[in-house]
Structure formats: C-alpha cells, structure tokens
C-alpha cells in the first residue's frame, strides 16, 4: 500500500538539455498512472529518476513519505520492467527471478515457492528451467514483469514494456498487465508513447511535452476535454482549425460557429465523431474530398473553402460522394488561445450528463 510523491523535479543533462522541468505528480495507492508523450518529452527520464537510474538536478521524490531522491536503485522499493526486457541471458528463468530474492537472503524453499507463484501469475507456470533466449518476445516480457513482481515492490515501473512486440501481442499483454496490477493493487507508473495503451490501461494519464506536464486527468477526460491544443492533437484524432473570433462568432473561410469569448485569434478543436455533416448545395461550408468506409463507420475527408482539411466521422458513408458540398454542425467544440483552453461548449445533453458523473 504505497503512495509516490514527486515534487518539482527537474533533470538537466550535462549537455544542458532540460529533460524534465519542475515536474510534480502524486500517485495514489494502487493507482496506475501513464506517462504519455512523444519521444523526447522526458517521460522515460522521469521514470528512470523514480527508479534511481538518474539523479534529479533538483526537486524531491518520496515513497510513503520516505525521501528516496538520492537513494541508489538497489535500495529503492521500486521494480522496473525495461523496454528491451533486459533479462540476464546467462541465467535461466528461475534464476532470473530468484536473483533478487537471493540478495535479500530469502530461504531457498521460500524462494522456490514465491518464484513459482509469480510464474503462475504471469501465465508461465513450469517455465522455470527454460533458458530466457528460448522464449518468445511476449514470454520474455512476462518474465521481466515477473522478475519485478516477485520482489513485491511498492512501486512498479514500466518503461514502454510492449514497444518491441507486435500489435496483437501488445493488446493481449496490455490486458494481462492491467489484470495483474488490479489484482495485486500495486501502485504503478507506466511510460508509453502509444495513446491506445494509455487510454486502455491508465487510471490517470499524464500528458508530457518538453519535460513539462500538459495535463493530468482520467483517460476519458483527457480525451474529451483536452486542456491544450497539444493534448487535443496528441490523443485521438482532432480537427484543429485556426481562425478568428469576432463578436462571439468563430469563423474560418466560410465556416462559422458561435463561441462566447473575447475577440481575437483562436484555435477551434472538434473531434471527427462530434462533427455532423449534412449535404448542402447553396450554403455549403466545405467540399467532400474522399470517403473511407471502415465497415462500422465511415470517415469523410473534407476541405473548407480555403482548402483546410478536416475529418468527420459519419455512420452512413454511402450518403457522401467526393465533390459534394456539405454543411458542418459541430456537437461539441473547444477553443484555445495562446495554448490555453478558453471555451468548451455546445455540448449535447448526453455528453453533459456524462461530464457530471465524471466530476462527482
């Protein structure tokens, strides 16, 4: 039962690169938090600082109130799963798992019991005598996970653990890891650059950019209510339209919606699924460029009058043909100015209702 607190942590590398910039985060007991961001956003550096492999330039980290900022990795109650699995190839599966227990002077019988229990947990019961090089990529990653779990760490750290696996395996392991994490109620910090992974696994997502936090929220909120255009663009597909607001109306090349903010330039964000299209001949705001049928739904690429490209999700793609004029009716929009959210609105009743349960 453990809590991780990170307070104002910065990391400046010798070359002067500021990898992490006054970063703060509190991870609650049993919570799984995803650090999400493009490469170079500092998420891995942050995780490695929690693991003890990098020393923060400034700031403080505590686990259950104990300051761990300058504790070496071997004395930290953290367990890390590496991207390349980093299994010790000169030891078999059992020895890989037993090594940490042996260092802790656990009795051999107890080591055997615990290793076998954890192997069972990750679905590799009876694999103890295998050489790690004989295992498949997915199995190796499971052993790496088991190696961390067998020591019952207070905080589990996962550094893009599925990056080297194929799509199918990744999805399966994602579910397995989430199941195990829920069963053990282990506090977990997870680094990924894949939004699917973050959305499907995390209790909370930390979106990072240039070593700073862009947004910390539950996955559904990050998705529906991105706080900055960066988050909006990074998570899911988002139409970002640069335009101007005058007299409470946002307009861009013939397309306009009421937005109750002060006059000036603004960026409007609309999810493809929140953009309703109707065929229009006289007052067309855009033109259909291409229609893609995905079976369950369709995606319409369209051009505004000044050739700005946006996408809309439609349930009946057959209704639209390239070249047709369409009118746009957004159901939910957000507006940003200077990278800050200034308005969110035009919500339909059902989304509004959901928003209330989220806040409760």
């Amino acid at each position, binding site marked *: 039962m453990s809590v991780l607190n990170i307070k104002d942590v910065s990391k400046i590398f010798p070359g002067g690169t500021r990898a992490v910039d006054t970063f703060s985060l509190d991870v609650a007991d049993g919570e799984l938090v995803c650090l999400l961001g493009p490469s170079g956003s500092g998420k891995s550096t942050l995780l490695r600082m929690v693991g003890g492999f990098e020393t923060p330039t400034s700031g403080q980290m505590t686990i259950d109130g104990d300051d761990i900022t300058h504790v*070496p*990795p*071997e004395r930290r109650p953290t367990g*890390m799963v*590496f991207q390349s699995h*980093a299994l*010790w190839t000169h030891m078999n599966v059992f020895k890989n798992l037993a*090594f940490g227990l042996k*260092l802790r002077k656990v009795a051999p019988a107890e080591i055997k019991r615990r290793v076998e229990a954890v192997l069972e947990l990750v679905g590799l019961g009876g694999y103890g005598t295998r050489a790690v090089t004989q295992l498949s990529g997915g199995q190796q990653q499971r052993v790496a996970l088991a190696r961390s779990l067998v*020591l019952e760490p207070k905080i589990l750290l996962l550094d893009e653990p599925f990056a080297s696996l194929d799509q199918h395996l990744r999805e399966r392991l994602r579910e397995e890891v989430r199941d195990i994490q829920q069963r053990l109620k282990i506090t977990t910090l997870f680094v990924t650059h894949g939004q699917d992974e973050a959305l499907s696994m995390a209790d909370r997502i930390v979106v990072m950019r240039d070593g700073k936090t862009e947004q910390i929220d539950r996955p559904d909120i990050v998705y529906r209510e991105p706080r900055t255009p960066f988050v909006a663009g990074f998570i899911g597909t988002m139409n970002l339209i640069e335009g101007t607001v005058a007299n409470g109306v946002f307009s861009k090349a013939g397309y306009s919606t009421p937005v109750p903010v002060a006059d000036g330039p603004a960026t409007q964000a609309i999810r493809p699924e929140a953009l309703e299209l109707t065929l229009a001949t006289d007052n067309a705001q855009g033109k259909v460029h291409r229609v893609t049928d995905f079976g369950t739904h369709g995606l319409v690429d369209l051009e505004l009058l000044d050739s700005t490209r946006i996408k809309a999700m439609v349930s009946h793609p057959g209704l639209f043909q390239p070249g047709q004029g369409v009118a746009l009716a957004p159901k939910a929009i957000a507006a940003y100015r200077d990278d800050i959210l200034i308005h969110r609105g035009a919500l339909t009743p059902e989304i509004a209702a959901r928003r209330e349960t989220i806040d409760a």
Partner: protein
Amino acid sequence: MSTLVRRRTDWTGITFAVVLTLVIVLPLLVVGTWAFTNVWRYPSLIPQEFGLRFWNQTLARADVWSSISMSLTLAVTVTVLSAVICLPAAYAFARMEFPGRSILFFSFLAGHAFPKFGLLVAIAGIFLQLNLIGTFWGVVLIQLVGTLLFMIWIPVAAFQAVDRRMEEAARDVGATPMRVFWSITLPQAGPTIAAAILLSFVGTFYETEGAWLIGAPQVRTLPVLMISFINNQPVIQYGAVLSVLLWVPSFIALMFARKVVNSGSFARGFGG
C-alpha cells in the same frame, strides 16, 4: 528431392582444400610422425620403426624440464599480471568517462606502428641500463608489453557489448554495483574475456623473439631451447617431441578461441 536441387560440385573449394591440406597440415603431420619414430633412414617413405623411445630420452633431459617449467612460470606470471592490470583498465575504458579517454585508449596501438623486432631492440637498449637483460623479470616485462593491446581491446569490446539495461535491472532488484559486476557484467562478458586471457597465455608461451633477445641464454624457455635444438642438435626426434609438447597448449587454444576468431571481431581488431 536431393536429386532435383543437387548442388554443383564445388571444384574450386576442393582444389583449395587439397592444396591447403598439403601445404598446411602435411608439414605438421611429418613433425608428428618424427616424434613417434625410433628409426627413419633415407630414402624410406615411411619410418622403419615407430616407438616412444625418444619421448623417454627427451623427457629425461634436464634442460627440457627446466625450460618447460620456465615457460609455464613465465606464461602464468605474464597472464596473471596482464589480467590484473588490463581488465580493470578495460572496464574503465568501457564504462567510465575520464579526461583523455580516447587518446589513452588508442595509445595501446603505439607498439603496432613499428616493426616488432626493431622495437624489441630499442627496449633492450633501455633494459641494458637497468640490468634487466638475461633476467626473468626482463622477459616478463617484454611479454607483458606484447599482451597489452588485445588484453585491453578485446575485453573493452566485451564489456561494451553487455546491455546497460541488464546491469540496471540487477541494480533494480537490489544488487550493489560490485555485485552487479560479479553476477551480471562479468558472466556476460566472460567468454570473450576468457578467450583474451587464453590468447595472452598461449602467446606468451610461444613467444620466441623477445625471450631470445632479452632472456637467452640465462632464461631458457621452450621456444628458445627449440632454436638451439634446431641449430645444434643432430637427433631430429628431440625437436619433434618438443614440437608436439609445445603444440598442446596451441591446440587447446584453437578449440577455445575459434568462436572469437571466426566471429571476425578479431580481424577487425587487426584493422580489417
């Protein structure tokens, strides 16, 4: 199936194989035969009498035993000293940052920019002033210099090939840096380092030129004794038996070092 995809006979390969066997294996076979020959008079194609008589005679010679023990002592001393001073240095080059790291790393090439025996004579000039000529430690020093390059370069490559994450994972499960080195880094780099140590042992055991220039006649190693046998010994079998004796460590080395040599890393170490 095999009749359908039957390969063309590799005549080039067979030619190379036959010629190389004749040129490389045959001379050694002849020496091996001489070692087990009691009587072989011209012009018989094969020995008149096989036997181990000359093994007994050779091994009864005091100079043979003293040179065997001298060669072994020398090789063990040099290998141990070389490992003790080179392996920590190799680790430092592979894993630490310090001023002048690159230039110091390449300084070990210095000896290879000059013809070897010329360099030995230059060193002998220094040893002359230090009264090291004709002494055991003089020979040890000269051999030690010869092992430096590959006892540093091969282990550096071995240490660098160890995945940094493996070491971090060991720190993560509670191993101290010292323990990580013993339990993870060393076993991972182990086979390559063992090959380097073996090469150093065998190289020292066979080294003739330095031992002859610096050591002879006071420090008489097996190869030095062998030279005097070739020059002055009318009984051919003594040399033959000694060759077989000398060659035993070589053969073991061949078996162990084959992996390292065939991987090509060795050739690259020589600039290929």
